[in-house]
């Protein structure tokens, strides 16, 4: 699949200079934004406005990813994540997953649409031969096909469910990740978490794994204005619970504070070196309010 280039997404960046900061504690999670914002889907709520036409954040070269993995290993990283865009569009994704798995447990976040039987076989082989766990997070926004595809595009539901089935058949125990984008449409019924667990059980998934995440007001869900965190908001709050205290993201152009804000100038902490990014991260963006209020982490658990 080739990348179709067009005008980059215009990003409204609030100022980061006077924002409260989060001290860097440790490198628990290295995130690699492997395909930038290049994706085969164009979800209506995408946090970084990924899509096939306008990858305003470019994919990164394999050598950049390998260097990040090598440096993270030396720095005592605990886990590695691949995200995008859609990571399985990257021509070297399997080789890079293997490189990461030689160093640390590794997770790949995918929409599942490109995982066919052959790819699932390769992933199962990788998982069997690795020293550490391979986790595959498959995004699905609703257990109802129509509601899901209204958000994620026609046919996305069937392809994601196929991926969940064939990964499960190979013992890979995918983690289904859902945003709360359609939760208001299920008022009065089971909670989202139980609804997804029940749905997976209905598919024959014996060990259902579900992660629910809030919708962030950025990317295609961005809104004008938006409240920002102040020092008063953080009075008595343990800033070490925020993921930017222990995560860094390698993406096109440098190293960023968190996966939500990867690619945005205000979240950029270094031009390339991982260790150089180990400094205070500004809580400058309206999305930081969501993490503060919900305790959200992009990590698996």
């Amino acid at each position, binding site marked *: 699949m080739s990348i179709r280039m067009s005008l980059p997404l215009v990003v409204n960046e609030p100022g980061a200079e006077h924002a409260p900061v989060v001290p860097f504690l440790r490198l628990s999670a290295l995130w690699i934004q492997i395909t930038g914002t290049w994706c085969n889907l164009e979800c209506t709520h995408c946090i970084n406005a990924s899509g096939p036409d306008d990858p305003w954040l470019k994919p990164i070269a394999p050598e950049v990813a390998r260097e990040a993995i090598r440096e993270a*290993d*030396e720095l*005592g*990283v*605990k886990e590695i994540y691949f995200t995008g865009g859609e990571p399985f569009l990257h021509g070297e994704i399997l080789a890079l997953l293997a490189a990461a798995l030689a160093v640390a447990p590794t997770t790949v976040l995918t929409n599942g649409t490109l995982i066919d039987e052959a790819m699932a076989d390769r992933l199962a082989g990788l998982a069997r031969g690795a020293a550490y*766990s391979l986790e595959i997070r498959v995004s699905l926004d609703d257990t109802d096909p129509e509601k899901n595809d209204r958000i994620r595009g026609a046919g996305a539901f069937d392809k994601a469910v196929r991926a969940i089935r064939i990964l499960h058949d190979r013992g890979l125990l995918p983690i289904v990740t859902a945003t709360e984008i359609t939760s208001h449409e299920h008022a009065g019924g089971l909670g989202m978490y139980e609804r997804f667990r029940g749905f997976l059980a209905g598919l024959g998934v*014996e060990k259902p794994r579900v992660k629910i995440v809030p919708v962030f007001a950025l990317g295609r869900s961005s809104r004008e204005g938006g409240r920002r965190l102040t020092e008063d908001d953080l009075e008595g709050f343990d800033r070490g619970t925020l993921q930017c205290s222990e995560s860094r993201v390698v993406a096109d152009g440098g190293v960023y504070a968190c996966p939500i804000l990867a690619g945005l100038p205000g979240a950029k902490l270094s031009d390339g070196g991982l260790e150089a990014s180990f400094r205070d991260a500004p809580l400058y963006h309206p999305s930081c309010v969501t993490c503060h209020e919900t305790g959200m982490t992009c990590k698996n*658990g």
Partner: protein
Amino acid sequence: MQERVAEYRRVALFGGVYNNAPALHATLEDARRRDVEAVFCLGDMGGFGPHPDRVFPLLKDHGVLAIQGNYDESLAQGKSDCGCGYTDPRDNHFARISYEYTFANTSTGNKQWLGALPGRRRIRLGEHRVLMCHGSPRVINEFLWESATPTGLLKRFLGQAEADVLACTHTGIKWHRPLPDGKHAVNVGVIGRPENDGSSNVWYTVLTAGPDLSVEFIPVHYDFETLARQIEQEGLPLEFAETIRTGWWTTCLENLPSRERARGKY
């Protein structure tokens, strides 16, 4: 002030008592028969099981050298939750039931005893400098699973602590990884519940000094049926009793890495 470091040749270690007095009693008896010089508990006396106050006389009477786990810290400080570090709603649901029961049924004196425990201990086993902690050396409730703990991270922990052996618990499943330069990382397991392998026994660890460190994992068989009945009589979740009887975890599953999760029934 220089930390005083006791020296031993052979010691027993376990974690996660989880209110399981019958298993604790059986473990202490087994360790005594194996001629260990000291017994160490790496924390989390409470949770999951019935009658929390029954484990404390055993720990004290047998001179068990304990450190504080996240459960102990929460009980001692009167916190509103166990601080186990779960993020999943189902895990947190069962953790809340367990913690509220344990908090209500642990005496003030025992909570104070837990509050006085150290956060870590150091010993020497022959030439090996051993660092004991609950979760990890840096975070009390950090999960160090076998399939999710990089060797690079373990080397870093040991380097920073100037230790040769890292002993931890918290996850509930034992493992041992020899590292370069004769160093070792050992998750000593827990004696409070079986380790999700379909067997009702629990596990503890014996470390013996030598040119290289000897790491033995010891299975402990105990009267699990009595414990399961007590869990039911106390009105704790039936899922807890099922785990005690079958050896399969029914709760607190969602933070397992895929490899450990795949080995279990649920």
